[in-house]
């Protein structure tokens, strides 16, 4: 079951293996459907890898424990679903403000509240963006295959470390429970690079200094080494001390958003499928991108010029890619398992006055290719 090679596995299993391949050696979590296989894989695999699994009393403490473990130098992650993701928002904000890298897997299920625990949904797109209070940037990736689950888990850690930020791996129950072929490839050294180490002397070190070159943030050494420092969720200066002056508060909040937004070109990735000559485009992600891809294949068989833009990065939102697409098609349709959370973002970018339609399904079932095609039929008639 373990190690490299070709497997027939579920999305949940692949997420866990991707995390281990990325060097994750700390997991704290609380069991919840439909993500529990990730916790089970962590409990099974981490002892043998020299890592640590701890099951916490709730998702508040799970999120806190991974943030603490990361500050002590471990690549750390947790996995949950909607109700748990709601509880994690407080300390996800701590990771944002303290600029502590970590990965939070949210296997989305039908909500609000307990909702339908085993049914897929994509209703947490906006929660991933704005769930914790206050202005900040965030990175969220959306896998649509088991291979994506593995690859994006690796990438999530890479982005988290590079930008010193929490990264949300926004999976869904359909992709997480899906079993298909996956290659547990060996990631490149660059993909699993460890945290950079400060080059300055301990007395010169400022844990929240903004790197003038990268315009990101100072490297974070682990607690216990030569560097003695303070991490805080309160407004702070570059040293980690109190920094509530208006000028400093303004600087920090703009930095937390800017370090993500300024670097969107190296974060955002999309997939283009049959878009070269497309007259109409689907824009989708996660399990709904699979339905969309099938719809495109079906349409192409019938000679219709339909294509798909799959958003594998949801946050920061692929503004440039979407705007460029909208500029050259007659219309766009956004299939998603919610009432239009990504569609709203697409409409924000519609400077071209073309029809932008949603296919919004919230009944706990997947969107069928047939439904997509019938909406297109009507729209393009």
């Amino acid at each position, binding site marked *: 079951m373990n190690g490299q090679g070709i497997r027939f596995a579920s999305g949940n299993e692949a997420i866990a293996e991707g995390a281990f391949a990325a060097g994750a050696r700390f997991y704290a979590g609380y069991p919840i459907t439909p993500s529990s296989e990730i916790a089970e894989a962590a409990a099974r695999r981490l002892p043998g890898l020299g890592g640590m699994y701890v099951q916490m009393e709730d998702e508040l403490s799970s999120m806190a424990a991974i943030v603490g473990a990361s500050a002590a130098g471990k690549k750390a992650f947790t996995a949950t679903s909607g109700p748990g993701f709601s509880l994690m928002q407080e*300390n996800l904000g701590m990771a944002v403000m303290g600029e502590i890298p970590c990965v939070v897997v949210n296997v989305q299920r039908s909500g609000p509240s307990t909702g339908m625990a085993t049914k897929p949904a994509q209703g947490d797109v906006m929660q991933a963006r704005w769930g914790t209070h206050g202005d900040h940037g965030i990175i969220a990736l959306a896998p649509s295959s088991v291979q994506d689950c593995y690859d994006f888990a690796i990438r999530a850690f890479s982005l988290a470390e590079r930008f010193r930020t929490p990264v949300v791996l926004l999976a869904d129950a359909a992709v997480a429970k899906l079993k298909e072929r996956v290659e547990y490839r060996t990631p490149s050294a660059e993909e699993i690079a460890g945290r950079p180490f400060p080059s300055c002397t301990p007395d010169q070190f400022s844990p929240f200094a903004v790197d003038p070159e990268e315009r990101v943030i100072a490297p974070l050494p682990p*607690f216990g080494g030569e560097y003695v420092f*303070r991490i805080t969720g309160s407004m702070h200066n570059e040293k980690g001390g109190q920094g509530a002056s208006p000028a400093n508060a303004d600087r920090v909040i703009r930095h937390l958003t800017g370090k993500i937004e300024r670097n969107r070109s190296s974060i955002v990735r999309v997939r283009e499928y049959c878009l070269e000559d497309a007259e109409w485009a689907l824009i989708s992600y996660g399990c709904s991108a699979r339905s969309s891809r099938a719809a495109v294949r079906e349409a192409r068989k019938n000679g219709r010029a339909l294509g798909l833009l799959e958003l594998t990065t949801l946050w920061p939102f692929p503004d440039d890619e979407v705007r460029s697409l909208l500029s050259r098609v007659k219309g766009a349709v956004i299939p998603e398992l919610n009432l239009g959370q990504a569609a709203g973002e697409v409409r924000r970018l519609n400077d071209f006055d073309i029809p932008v339609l949603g296919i919004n399904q919230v009944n706990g079932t997947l969107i069928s290719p047939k439904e997509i095609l019938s909406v297109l039929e009507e729209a393009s008639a």
Partner: protein
Amino acid sequence: MNQLTYRDYLVESRLPTIWCPGCGNGIVLKAILKAFADLGLDRKKTVAVSGIGCWGWADDYIDTNAFHGTHGRALAFATGIKLANPELTVVVLMGDGDGATIGGNHLIHAARRNVDLTAVVVNNFNYGMTGGQYSGTTPRGSITSTSLLGHVEDGFDLCALAAAAGAPYVARGTVAEPGKLAALIEGGLARRGFSFVEALSPCPTHFGRFNGAKTPWEMLEELKSTPLPLGILTDREKEDYGTRYARTAEREREEGSS
């Protein structure tokens, strides 16, 4: 060992503290730093984890690594820090509202899980920072800004709670007897596993004024005759989580490689 003193761990440039005159927090801070000095703790290998509330400011004055987290979750952050790097000495600074009310669930599970942490809870029987509302330790009948007719609930006996939840080391002291308090904290730091030390402390600004406008001195005197038991209340050998997990993992790796 060269003679370290509490001042070796104090960030003197940040003094005076932000705490009110008559507050006991400064006394607890000194007791903790004295315990650090007596044990000769390496400041690079020590992390002070704090929560939110008046006592949550304490790490501002401690010259070790520090992690200032969210309200009530200090023990959970500390659990991650300690389990990720077992070489660290992790001290968790919480108040009664922070550590025992909003964070009550984390407290009992930390005591049960028995990660090697030392929790120092300053109990002043109310939420000082937000204006003196009642907390989970406010005694029945007390006046607070949210129990003006007298508090109708009973307060927790935190040491009884921590002991019942499984903590191997439980102790209670007061800021009226700082030397004894430092010794209790030192005992907690020396004990491997989850140590719980409660420091009873006055909040003259809120709790004192609401309950008879006593002077800080009178409040200190009263602490000495608290009906709550003082001293080391539980002290027992219990293998901590990290040690037990490491042994289990070692077995797994040996079996896995054979």
